């Protein structure tokens, strides 16, 4: 059947990966987000907490839940995975430490919340079943301990996506550990701190218990040490450059991935610029990091407005004028059209016809510089700006000079 050729796939790699030769290439390879180091710096405290929690539960032979929250890029998943691999190592080394089973599911990878049951059952027993049947089997599995000795650690990433109207999936996941024979430890990871209070019913959040952990966003010092730990033994960065990147990222989000991305981009920029005579090697400096930062943080909207065609710019100005005149943040297409034509007359341009202005309007709307309401009530179409009026005047004034 021709079904095969509609399944998307990545073309296979023909040539092997390049092994990094130069210093900057080394640095880039290490700064890649996928190159997770063996031990995570600046998360020792959280590591200890999770480790003791899981370890004590395993040793006691009881079950329990832990809720882990924090904004993206604070190392939640990496820390939990590290704890698991550490425990795994302990099982191998220590004779007395009991074996345990690890089950991982990710809410983002499931097509539908109820598929979580299917995934868990498949990981536990290798059995395949429909979602409904799987939930029944798991229910039985966790109530009776027949033929099962190992404790189970269930790791649920992106918990908020498992939310359903009846919240059956969340309820089951947090209800199983409280069964006397289940010996199940649930580690739930999500982005928001107040998720249990916001979306879960009381009977679920009470089962979740009070064992919560919040990953704070990284401070600039932590970000700096993360980048430095990755670049240990490599002479690629000026220390001030790392500090600049760390400070900027910490001010906005405290996202470690973002900091690594910026540093990587800065090394790329440093590679392309020709090394000047007096510096001994290509070193990533402040100016490279600064360029990378402006590339990532600057708004493309102003650039888009500056590069827009003349009539598009006049249309934006017409919107701003219309808003100024009416005092509202919204105007109809016909009013803006009248402004547009009068601006054209003032500038000595030939005033366009309605269809041309409509084309201009729809083009601006498709790159989201303005917002149109859905529906096709042409002349009565309401128009709003998606950028601030000051940005419009700033971008367009600059350009005309």
């Amino acid at each position, binding site marked *: 059947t*021709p079904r095969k*050729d*509609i399944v998307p796939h990545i073309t296979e790699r023909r040539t092997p990966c390049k092994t990094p030769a130069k210093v900057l290439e080394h640095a880039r390879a290490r700064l890649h987000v996928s190159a997770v180091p063996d031990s995570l710096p600046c998360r020792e405290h959280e590591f200890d907490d999770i480790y003791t929690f899981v370890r004590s539960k395993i040793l006691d032979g009881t079950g329990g839940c832990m809720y882990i929250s924090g904004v993206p890029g604070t190392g939640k998943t990496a820390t939990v995975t590290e704890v698991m691999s550490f425990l795994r190592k302990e099982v191998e080394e220590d004779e007395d430490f009991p074996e345990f089973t690890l089950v991982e599911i990710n809410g983002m990878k499931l097509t539908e919340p109820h598929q979580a049951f299917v995934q868990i059952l498949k990981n536990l027993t290798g059995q395949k079943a429909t979602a409904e049947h799987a939930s029944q089997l798991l229910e039985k599995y966790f109530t009776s301990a027949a033929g099962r000795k190992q404790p189970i650690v269930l790791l649920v990433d992106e918990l908020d996506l498992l939310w359903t109207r009846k919240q059956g999936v969340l309820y089951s996941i947090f209800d199983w550990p409280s069964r006397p024979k289940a010996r199940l430890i649930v580690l739930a990871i999500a982005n928001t701190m107040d998720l249990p209070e916001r979306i879960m019913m009381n009977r679920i959040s009470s089962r979740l218990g009070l064992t919560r952990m919040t990953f704070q966003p990284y401070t600039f010092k932590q970000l700096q040490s993360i980048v430095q730990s990755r670049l240990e033994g490599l002479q690629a960065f000026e220390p001030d450059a790392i500090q600049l990147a760390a400070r900027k990222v910490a001010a906005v989000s405290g996202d470690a991935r973002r900091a690594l991305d910026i540093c990587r981009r800065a090394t790329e920029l440093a590679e392309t610029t020709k090394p000047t005579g007096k510096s001994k090697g290509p070193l990533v400096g402040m100016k490279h990091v600064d360029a990378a930062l402006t590339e990532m943080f600057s708004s493309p909207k102003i650039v888009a407005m500056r590069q827009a065609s003349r009539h598009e710019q006049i249309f934006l100005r017409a919107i701003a004028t219309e808003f100024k005149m009416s005092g509202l943040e919204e105007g109809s297409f016909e009013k803006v059209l009248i402004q547009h034509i009068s601006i054209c007359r003032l500038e000595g341009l030939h005033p366009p016809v*309605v*269809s041309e202005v*409509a*084309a201009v309007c*729809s*083009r601006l*709307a*498709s*790159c989201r510089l303005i917002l*149109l309401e859905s*529906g*096709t009530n*042409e002349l009565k*179409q309401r128009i709003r700006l998606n950028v601030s009026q000051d940005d419009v005047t700033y971008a367009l004034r600059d350009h005309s000079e």
Partner: protein
Amino acid sequence: MTRQFPQKCNDIATRAEEFKMEDVSLVASDTEDVTSRILCREKQMAMLYSLMGEPSQPTCPSVFIYGHGATGKTLVVSTLLKAASLPHAFVNCIECQTSRQLLDSILDQVANHKPHPENNYSSLNRCENMNTFVRLLKKTIEERGIENQTVYIVLDKAERLRNMDGNLLPAFLNLSQLSGCNVCVFLLSQIVWEKFLFGFGSNHFEPFIIHFPDYTKSELLEIIASDCPKGYSAEFYSSYVNLLMSIFYMVCRDLNEIRHLAQLNFPKYVEPITKGEASEKDSHKLWRHIEPHLKKALQTVYLREVTSEQWEKYQRDEISQTGQSSILPSSSRTQIELPFYSKYLLIAAYLASYNPARYDRRFFSKNSGKVKKSAVNRKKETSHQLLGPRAFPLDRLMAIFYSIVDSRVAPTANIFSQISSLVTLQLLAQVGHEDQLDTPKYKCTVSLEFIRSIARTVSFDVIRYLYDFVK
């Protein structure tokens, strides 16, 4: 994102104008008779020809053709494609309720597959979405061995595409790029391109736009005069069409409509000649004979109050009977047989809808009291007949009903069920559906003519009670 071809478009347009007929005559000889058959569309056809080019040449990915009804859009495109026997699919979007029907029928036509009893009226492929369509289109074209020819897809009534799946119209505009085949999509519509534009973004190829303008008076004359009935000279028929147009051109420029009327009224026009009262030369006599007839036709046949069949029958046996009023136009047949109290209920509803509530006491109260002579300094109000009916509560309807009915009527279930059956007959309309039982509000949706005829049957003078007429 958007690719426009302003340069190329201008180019083609000027070229088309320059060559006009020469360009047409350059194309293969079998298409020559086609061009002569379609009148008054030389410029548009020349433009289409130059756009289409040779079958092997790549064409514009999409062409948008718009113009009013009956301007020859469908005719021109379909005859061009058929005459040159190019591979094409012609689909009317109104016929396709779902996108699957649309896509299936396009694929069938491209593959030259016709659903018939032997294959159980099934189509060749099952094509649910655009993704499959693009894949199957490529396969179909390869199987038929027409990779190096342009395949044309014509979508008539293309405005319907806007209400189908959101990705359908952009995908059709980009079809040649998506499929990698030499495909050209014609979109035929009565509305302008801007109305398509606001529906979706502009991440698509801008189609090449061709406008089919309305036929002028002389063009209409030329086209209609071309189908002259046998036995009469062309001049005679065209003078008849000229007379017809002098009556109808003011209100109607639709070719189909005028053509239909010309056909319908021609027997009447030639009646004096067949009777031997006049000859073909007596144009003045013929005009006097036909003019009142055509004016009558304008009020009856044109509005479809009298069907064409009735009109023809009337013309045939008019000789025996004279009265034109023997045919009842359907609008004057608005008499509906209603029960006695239903009539009064309807009258009461009409009065409640078109009278302001504050004058109810003056009209309906037994001791109406003194009406102040303040009519002079009353502001000029807009007539309530113009503003349309207003909603009124059930209580007010019943109060007016009791005051206009002379006898004592018990408020039985029968009376109330008559109100709800008036609603089902759509003579009344219920406004706001929040509470059905508590205080329902109604509107009266019948015309003044209708209510007067109803009131006449119960000998009740409505006009005396209507605020607009009394003041």
